[in-house]
C-alpha cells in the first residue's frame, strides 16, 4: 500500500497541472517575501487540488485575504481537544501554496473527536511587514472543529486578514 503522501502527489500530478506546478513553479513564484500592501497582491500560483478518490484525511488551506495570496509560512499547532484540555498532536507550517506538505491527519490518524488548530496570525503578518496595532486584534487564532465520521475526507479552508477570519468544512 502506498503512503498517503505518495498517493496525494500522484493524484495531483495526474489530475491538475496547476496543482503539480504548485510544487515547482508555484514555489518559485511565492518564494520571495509577500507584498507589504494589498495594492500589490502576489500571484495565486496554485490551482485547486482535487481530493476525489483519496482516503480519509484532514487537509488545511490557509488563504491570506489581505494580500490575496495563499498563506505561506503560517505556523499552525494541531491539538486534540477534550473540554478545555488540549493534547498537542503536531505543529505544521504551510508551504507556498498555503497548504502543509502533508495532510494534517490521514487514514488511521484521523479519529472521531474534537480538535483545535491554533494559527499564528499576528506572527504571519508581522513577518510580512504589515503594520499592526500592539497588541494586534488577532494573535494566535483557535480554529475549533469536530470530526464525526473518520471515514470521510475533511478539508479545512481558513480565510483570514489581520481583522477577521472565516473557516468552514470545504471539499
Amino acid at each position, binding site marked *: 500500500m502506498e503512503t498517503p503522501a505518495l498517493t496525494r502527489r500522484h493524484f495531483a500530478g495526474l489530475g491538475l497541472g496547476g496543482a503539480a506546478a504548485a510544487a515547482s513553479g508555484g514555489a518559485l513564484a511565492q518564494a520571495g517575501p509577500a507584498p507589504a500592501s494589498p495594492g500589490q497582491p502576489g500571484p495565486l500560483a496554485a490551482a485547486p487540488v482535487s481530493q476525489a478518490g483519496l482516503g480519509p484525511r484532514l487537509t488545511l488551506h490557509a488563504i491570506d485575504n489581505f494580500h490575496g495570496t495563499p498563506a505561506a509560512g503560517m505556523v499552525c499547532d494541531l491539538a486534540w481537544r477534550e473540554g478545555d484540555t488540549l493534547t498537542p498532536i503536531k505543529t505544521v507550517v504551510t508551504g507556498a501554496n498555503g497548504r502543509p506538505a502533508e495532510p494534517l491527519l490521514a487514514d488511521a490518524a484521523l479519529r472521531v473527536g474534537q480538535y483545535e488548530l491554533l494559527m499564528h496570525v499576528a506572527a504571519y503578518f508581522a513577518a510580512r511587514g504589515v503594520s499592526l496595532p500592539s*497588541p494586534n486584534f*488577532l494573535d494566535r487564532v483557535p480554529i475549533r472543529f469536530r470530526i464525526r465520521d473518520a471515514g470521510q475526507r475533511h478539508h479545512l479552508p481558513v480565510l483570514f*486578514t489581520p481583522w*477577521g477570519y472565516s473557516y*468552514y468544512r470545504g471539499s
Partner: protein
Amino acid sequence: MAGISTHVLDTDRGRPAAGIRIDFSVLEGETWRLVKSVVTNADGRTDQPILAPEEARVGQYQLAFHVEDYFRRRPGTAQADIFIDDPVVRFAIFDPAQHYHVPMLCAPGSFTTYRGS
C-alpha cells in the same frame, strides 16, 4: 462608545441566533478567567454590553460561543452536519477608547468573525 459587544447570526437560516450562551473571559497571566456568561436575546445580541466602556483595558479577551446546543435544538439540523465546534474568538483591546464589536456568523459547517462596527 467603547467596550465589547457581539452579534450572533445564523447565516444558515438568515436570522439572528437567539439563546446562544457566550462565555466571556479575560487573560490573566497564562490563565483565562471567566468574567461572565451571557445568553443572546431574540435579536442575537446581549441585553447588556459584553464589556462596559469604563471597564475596558488593554488586554486579551475571549468569547466562547456555545453554538452546538443551538444547532441541536434547531429543527431540521442533522448532528452529522455540525462541523464547527463551539468556536472561540480571542482578540485584543489595543486601545480602550475604541469600541470592539465582534460579531459571529455561524452555520453548522462554517464560522466567520471580524472586527465589526
